[in-house]
């Protein structure tokens, strides 16, 4: 977690890259270097060929980036969520597909296993995954319910020493490469969301199969498919956490996942800003570079401001999580703002590049397509608004915030 020596006077250290403590700078530099040297050259191919970046993912594992916040005892890098958010941004700036593969393995798979599994379960289901040797995925969404996660239709029935799972999960990232899926299934639909439990399901289990890979607009290097369970039998002790706690596990996992996706969105936004700013300094029109035009400057300023604001919200959420504070509100704000910053920046980058932004010679069109999903997965923007509004209304409901008394102009208007 956060080193105590940073938690006092030096709090302002966590507001810009230049003032971060040394190890965060080191992680940023390493991830950035990796993105520029290993991901820049392959990102287009990954996108055009819908190709899983296996070599890059293997190297990420060797560098400790597939289990950033998992302790070294269980194969991770032993760092924290701020380090993870910083690394996510740099990796995604290189290739957003690689970014989401990294995010799912870190936040949606390793984090809940780290938090809720027994020691024995961790040896089997965490150590090989945090070190990147195996890949995990997260099976919550179903064809009939996305945002309405409490209405799970996938069932789990205890039969002797085994759970029998039946149902389908949809839109699952890493589906085709994962060795284990965390599957949320209900043992009693009448209990609604309290009947849901989480299960560790090895993908090679008989009765477990995959649907076809979805043909997506963006993040094409990552596989997205249905998980199909037909009388899929897993050992009784593959239950993750306590029975009936599945919904809670899912929600807390998504909170963490939102920080990762916020990081991914920041990377796409930064890449868009980079290409737009550089282009504007070179492209000439009306006798000068287009960077001299207010119309372009306005766009760049808006892009940079939204990006910087989103980044600070993301770091704030990560730091709150690392501190052990409630970070649900902060994570929702981070993901909401970062994803909207990504779509805004990618949109404006194409606009600044003009025709060049519309062709695949430049990466702007890929950023535009990659950015779009960040407003949808791991909680749509609408869900984030719900989370944020519910949290703030709860605060207002439970405290007495003073506001000026009404009618407060009457006294001012009264004459003596």
């Amino acid at each position, binding site marked *: 977690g956060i080193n105590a020596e940073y938690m006092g006077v030096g709090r302002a250290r966590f507001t810009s890259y230049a003032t971060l403590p040394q190890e965060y700078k*080191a992680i940023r530099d390493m991830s950035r270097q990796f993105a520029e040297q290993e991901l820049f050259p392959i990102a287009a191919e990954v996108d055009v060929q819908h190709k899983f970046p296996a070599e890059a993912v293997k190297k990420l594992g060797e560098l400790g980036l597939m289990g950033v916040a998992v302790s070294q005892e269980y194969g991770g890098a032993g760092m924290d969520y701020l*380090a993870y958010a910083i690394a996510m941004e740099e990796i995604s700036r290189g290739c957003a597909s690689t970014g989401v593969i990294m995010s799912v393995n870190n936040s949606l798979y390793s984090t809940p296993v780290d938090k809720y599994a027994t020691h024995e379960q961790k040896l089997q289901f965490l150590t090989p995954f945090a070190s990147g040797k195996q890949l995990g995925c997260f099976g919550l969404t179903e064809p009939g319910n996305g945002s309405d996660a409490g209405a799970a239709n996938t069932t789990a029935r205890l039969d002797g020493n085994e759970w029998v799972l039946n149902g389908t999960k949809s839109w699952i990232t890493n589906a085709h490469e994962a060795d284990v899926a965390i599957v949320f299934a209900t043992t009693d639909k009448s209990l609604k969301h309290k009947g849901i439990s989480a299960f560790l399901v090895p993908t090679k289990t008989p009765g477990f199969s995959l649907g076809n890979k979805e043909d997506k607009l963006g993040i094409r290097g990552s596989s997205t498919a249905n998980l199909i369970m037909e009388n899929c039998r897993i050992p009784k002790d593959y239950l993750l956490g306590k029975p009936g706690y599945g919904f809670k596990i899912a929600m807390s996992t998504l909170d963490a996942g939102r920080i990762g996706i916020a990081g991914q969105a920041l990377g796409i936004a930064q890449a868009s800003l980079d290409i737009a700013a550089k282009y504007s300094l070179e492209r000439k029109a009306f006798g000068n570079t287009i960077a001299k035009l207010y119309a372009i400057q306005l766009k760049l300023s808006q892009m940079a401001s939204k990006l910087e604001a989103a980044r600070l919200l993301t770091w704030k959420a990560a730091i709150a999580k690392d501190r052990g504070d409630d970070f649900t509100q902060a994570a929702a704000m981070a993901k909401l703002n970062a994803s909207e910053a990504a779509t805004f920046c990618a949109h404006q980058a194409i606009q600044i590049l003009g025709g060049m932004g519309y062709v695949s010679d430049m990466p702007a069109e890929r950023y535009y397509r990659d950015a779009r999903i960040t407003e949808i997965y791991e909680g749509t923007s609408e869900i984030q608004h719900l989370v944020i509004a519910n949290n703030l209304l709860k605060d207002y409901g439970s405290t007495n915030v003073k506001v000026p008394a009404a009618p407060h102009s009457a006294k001012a208007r009264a004459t003596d």
Partner: protein
Amino acid sequence: INAEYMGTPSECLFFFEMTLKALVSIKRVIDYTVKVRVRPDKLGVIKDNVKHSCNPFDEIAVEQAVRMKEKKLVGEIVAVSIGGPKSVEVLRGSALALGVDRAIHVKLPTDNDDVESLAVAKILHKIAEKEKPDVILTGKQAIDDDSCAVPQMLAGLLGWSQATFISELEVSGKTAKICRETDAGMQRLEVSLPSVISCDLRLNEPRYAKLPEIMKAKKKPLQEITADSLGVSTQPKIQILEVADPPTRAAGRKVKTVEELITKLKTEAKVI
């Protein structure tokens, strides 16, 4: 000590002689991607709020030392850096995080302070006298001043052999076979240890720092000393009169005849 080496006394001795001690000297410099600008007082370049990183040739030296340690040719690697407070970042991030065992920071008062090549060589000389390395590795030159003088001066002060601009290095026992990249071509030499070795671009490709190593680096020993404590003065012996941008590159010109070309080379370019 690895138990498998604990055979007869002569085998023990052989093991001790086999692993060398490496001292690697690294420098925090302005990052190569930065467009450097001259300071308003024209006595230097702007360093404040400018991205800095480890000198790329020094990263190659660190990588070489770490590879030698992995091959069990080197037993201990010590890194040293002479610079202001922020030099600690390159010691931890570019040395300790890559496999160096401990670090020495010869701390200058501020990050804007410079030390001349001879003073650097003298500081390293004093450190080498204390640490007694078998091999000193460093980059061929720092990309900020491009002095390219420290390794050569250091070898002179120590009375050691020097192997500069190396692109190949093979250490065995008390000698090292090297290949130097020079303007005249590739030169193959054998030098006896101890030696001062300066590394060129094609020697190796530095690895990425692994996250667990970045974390471990925080706990590795990093000792802070001053040049004064070594008895070395950092007082400049050179006075910088002016720092200026190189002349902006003019467009090329076409000439009509060879005679015209020769005339221009004589009278305008003044190169013949």
